[in-house]
C-alpha cells in the first residue's frame, strides 16, 4: 500500500457563442452633455465582469478613458435586446454590438469636432485622454467635453450610436450534419499531476498546469479570475460533484453545502496558468469566450493522471475514492 504519483494530459477546444448562432445582442451608446458615454444594454452580469469589459470596449472604440463610460444594463424597459448571458457569448456577441454602437457615436463626435475645428472629420483622431485633434497637428484640438457641449447646445446633434451583432442561424443538414456551430473556438491544454493513495482511494491534486488560448485577453485580471475559478470547478467536477451519488436512491442527494461536495479553501491545487492569444477574426478586438472552456480540460487530465498513478480507469464522473478503491480491488482480483 502506497501513495502513487501520476500525470495526465488533455487538450480541448470550445465554441464561442450559442451553438448554431441565431443569438442576437444589441447595444445603444450616447453621450451626456459633458462628454461621458452611456452604454445601454439588457445583458446580465453574473459576476464575470461583463459591465467592466463592455466599458473598456466602448472606451477603446470611442477613444476615451474607461471611467468615462457608464453601463446601464439588465432592464427590459430601457435596454435593447440581448439573448442572454450563457454559452460563452457575452464578450463576443455583446462586445461586437457595443463596438458597432460606439463606432457610430464616435463618427458623430468627430463630425461635431470637425465643425468646431473647421476641418474634415476624416482628418481627426482621438488621443485617448479626452481630446480630439487633427492628425499630425496635435495643437489643433478640441476636448471631448467641449465637443459634447457643442453637439448638445449649439448644433442640436445627438452623439449616439446603435449596435447589433447576430451570427446568422445555421440549420444542420439532416443527413450529413453539415452545419456552422460557431465562428471561433477557444483552446486549452492541461497537465495534471496527482497522488493517489491506493489504500483509501484518495486523490491529492499535486499540480495543475493550464494553457488557455482565448483570442485576446481584454482585461487580463478578469480573464485570470475566470480561468482560476474555472480550473477549480473542473477539479471539483472531476473528483467531487454529483447531485445523485447513489442514483436512483435519492436520500444521499446533496441538499446543501455540507452534503454537496466541492473542494474547499484547504483543498485547492497549486495551479499555473498560461494564456495564449490568437485573435478571432470576428471577435471584439479579437476576443473569444473563455468562461466555459476553462473548466473542461482538468477533468480528463485528472482521470488520465489517476490511471497513470494506479493503473485503473474510472470512466464515470465523478472519480470518487470509492470508485477508485472498487476498481483497485477488481484489478487485484484479476491479477491473482
Amino acid at each position, binding site marked *: 500500500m502506497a501513495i502513487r504519483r501520476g500525470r495526465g494530459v488533455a487538450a480541448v477546444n470550445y465554441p464561442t457563442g450559442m451553438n448554431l448562432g441565431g443569438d442576437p445582442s444589441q447595444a445603444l451608446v450616447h453621450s451626456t452633455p459633458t462628454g461621458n458615454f452611456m452604454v445601454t444594454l439588457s445583458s446580465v452580469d*453574473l459576476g464575470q465582469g461583463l459591465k467592466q469589459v463592455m466599458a473598456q470596449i466602448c472606451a477603446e472604440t470611442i477613444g476615451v478613458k474607461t471611467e468615462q463610460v457608464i453601463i446601464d444594463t439588465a432592464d427590459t424597459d430601457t435596454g435593447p435586446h440581448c439573448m442572454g448571458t450563457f454559452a460563452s457569448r457575452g464578450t463576443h456577441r455583446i462586445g461586437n454590438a457595443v463596438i458597432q454602437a460606439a463606432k457610430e457615436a464616435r463618427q458623430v463626435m468627430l463630425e461635431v469636432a470637425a465643425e468646431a475645428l473647421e476641418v474634415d472629420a476624416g482628418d481627426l483622431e482621438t488621443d485617448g485622454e479626452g481630446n480630439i485633434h487633427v492628425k499630425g497637428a496635435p495643437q489643433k484640438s478640441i476636448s471631448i467635453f467641449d465637443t459634447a457641449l457643442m453637439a448638445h447646445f449649439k448644433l442640436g446633434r445627438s452623439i449616439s450610436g446603435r449596435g447589433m451583432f447576430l451570427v446568422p442561424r445555421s440549420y444542420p443538414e439532416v443527413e450529413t450534419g453539415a452545419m456552422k456551430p460557431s465562428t471561433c473556438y477557444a483552446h486549452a491544454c492541461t497537465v495534471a499531476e496527482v497522488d493517489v493513495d491506493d489504500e483509501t482511494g484518495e486523490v491529492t491534486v499535486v499540480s495543475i498546469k493550464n494553457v488557455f488560448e482565448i483570442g485576446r485577453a481584454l482585461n487580463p*485580471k478578469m480573464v485570470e479570475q475566470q480561468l482560476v475559478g474555472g480550473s477549480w470547478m473542473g477539479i471539483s467536477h472531476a473528483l467531487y460533484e*454529483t447531485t445523485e451519488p447513489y442514483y436512483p436512491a435519492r436520500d444521499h442527494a446533496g441538499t446543501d453545502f455540507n452534503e454537496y461536495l466541492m473542494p474547499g479553501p484547504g483543498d485547492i491545487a497549486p495551479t499555473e496558468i498560461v*494564456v495564449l492569444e490568437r485573435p478571432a*477574426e470576428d471577435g471584439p478586438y479579437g476576443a473569444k469566450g473563455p468562461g466555459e472552456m476553462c473548466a473542461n*480540460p482538468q477533468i*480528463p487530465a485528472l482521470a488520465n493522471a489517476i490511471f497513470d498513478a494506479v493503473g485503473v480507469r474510472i470512466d464515470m464522473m465523478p472519480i470518487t475514492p470509492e470508485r477508485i478503491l472498487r476498481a483497485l480491488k477488481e484489478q487485484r482480483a484479476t491479477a491473482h
Partner: protein
Amino acid sequence: MKLAKDYFADQRTEELKELGQGLQRSDVPGHVTGKTSYFADRTFPGMLCLRMVRSPHHHARIRSVDLSEAERHPGVHRILTHKDIPHNLYTILILIQVGPEDEHVLAEDKVRWKGEAVVAVLADSEWAANEAAAKVRIDYEVLPSVLDIDAALAPDAPIVNEHHGQNHYMYDSGPSRKVRYGDVEKGFAEADHILEQTYYSSPIEQAPMETTGCIVTPDGNDRFTCYTNTQAMFFTLDNTSIILQMPGHKLHMVGGTVGGGFGGKVDVTVEPIAILAAKLTGRPVSFIYSRYEEMQVSSPRAAEKIVLKDGVMNDGHIVARQVWGYTDAGAYSRHSPYGAQKGAAHYPGPYTIPNVWVDTWCVYTNRTPSSAMRGFGVTIADFALEVQMDKLARLIGMDPLEFRFINAYRDGDMKAHRQPTTGAALIECMQEASRVASWPVAEKYMQMSSYKGG
C-alpha cells in the same frame, strides 16, 4: 497567470489603450462594502411569499388535490393550481422554434419527476407558506418510472412524456442529430486497432451562492415589475408573456448583479408564476428557491452516456471515430435538445479525422429535468474524448501528448460537420503545456504550427 506573448505575435497588430489592461472592476467597491444590490435585497410592504408543493414521486398520476386545510391556515392568501395558469403547457426554446411544448408550469394530471411543482401557496410569511404547503393533500397513484438512459430507450419502456410520444427528442434528422463524414466502416476496416469504450456522468449542480428567484411588484397600471436573477432578461420576459398570455409591454424585468449563474439561471421557472400571483393578489410576491430547491429541484447538468469507437493506426493517426452520445434530459426538454445537438458538432474533438459518424440523442427519463451548465453539451464530451485519447495512445504505445500532436486540427482542415478549420491554436497550447509541465515531446512537434500547412 502569464501571457505568453511569443505565440501568434504576428496576428496581434492592433494597438490597444483601454483594453489589454487589468483595470479594476467598477462593480467591486460595491461587492466589498456590501452595497451591490442583488434582486433579493429589497422588501416591500405586504409582500407575499410563494412556496411550491412538489411531487414526492418520480412518476405518478394525480388523483385529487385537497386544498381545504391549507387554505384555512392562518396567513394564507391564495393557493394556485394549474387551473389558474392561462397557458400552462410550455417549453422555453419555443421562442427559437424548438418545440413541442412539453412541460406544465403546475402539474395537471401527472407528475413526471420527484420535485415537480404541483401547487403554489401564497402566504404573508415564509413560515405560514411552509406550514400551509405541508397541509396540501395530494392523492397520487404511483406509476412505473424510468430512471436511466438505457431503461428509457428499452422497447417496452413506459412513456415519460406523452408530448414527445417516445422517450427521446425527435429532430428533423430523426431520433438523433447526425453527423456523417467519410466512411467509418471503411476506416475501421483499415485500422490497425479498434477501441470501443463507454463513459458515464452523473448530474452536477450549478450551485450558485445566490439561489434562483424573483420579487414581483404590481405597478398599479396593470404592469408588473419583476426583479429577477435570470441570466436572460428577454428570454424570461417573452416566455412569461406566452405562459401568462399577457402582452409583453405589461412586463418589466429588472436584473442587477447576479450571485453566480453557471447556466443554472437560464430556465424560466420562477418568474411566470410569481407574476401571476402578484396579478391575482394585487400584492408584491417573492419566490426564492430554498437551498434545497437549488440543489435538488433546479435543473442540473445532465447525466450522460457516451460510447466512443475509434480506429487507430500504429503510426498514431485516428482513421475513424464513431460516437453515440446520450443526454439524459430528465422529464422535460428545457434546453436539452439544444445541448445534445451541440455535442454532435463537437464530438470528433479538436482533431482531424477522415471518417466520422456521430449520433447524439436527447433522452427523456423520470429524473429532474436537466438544462444548461457551464460547458453545456461539451464538458462531459471532453471527458470522454480525452480519456479515450489517452487510452488510444497507450494502446499503440505512444506518448499521449505526441499522439495528440499527430491528430490535432490545423487551419484549413475540414471538420466532420463540413466547416474548414480557422483560427486553430491547439498545437500551440500543447507546445506551451509541454514547456510549462516539463513534458518533453519530439522536436518535430515543437516545430509544428496551427497555420495552414504548418
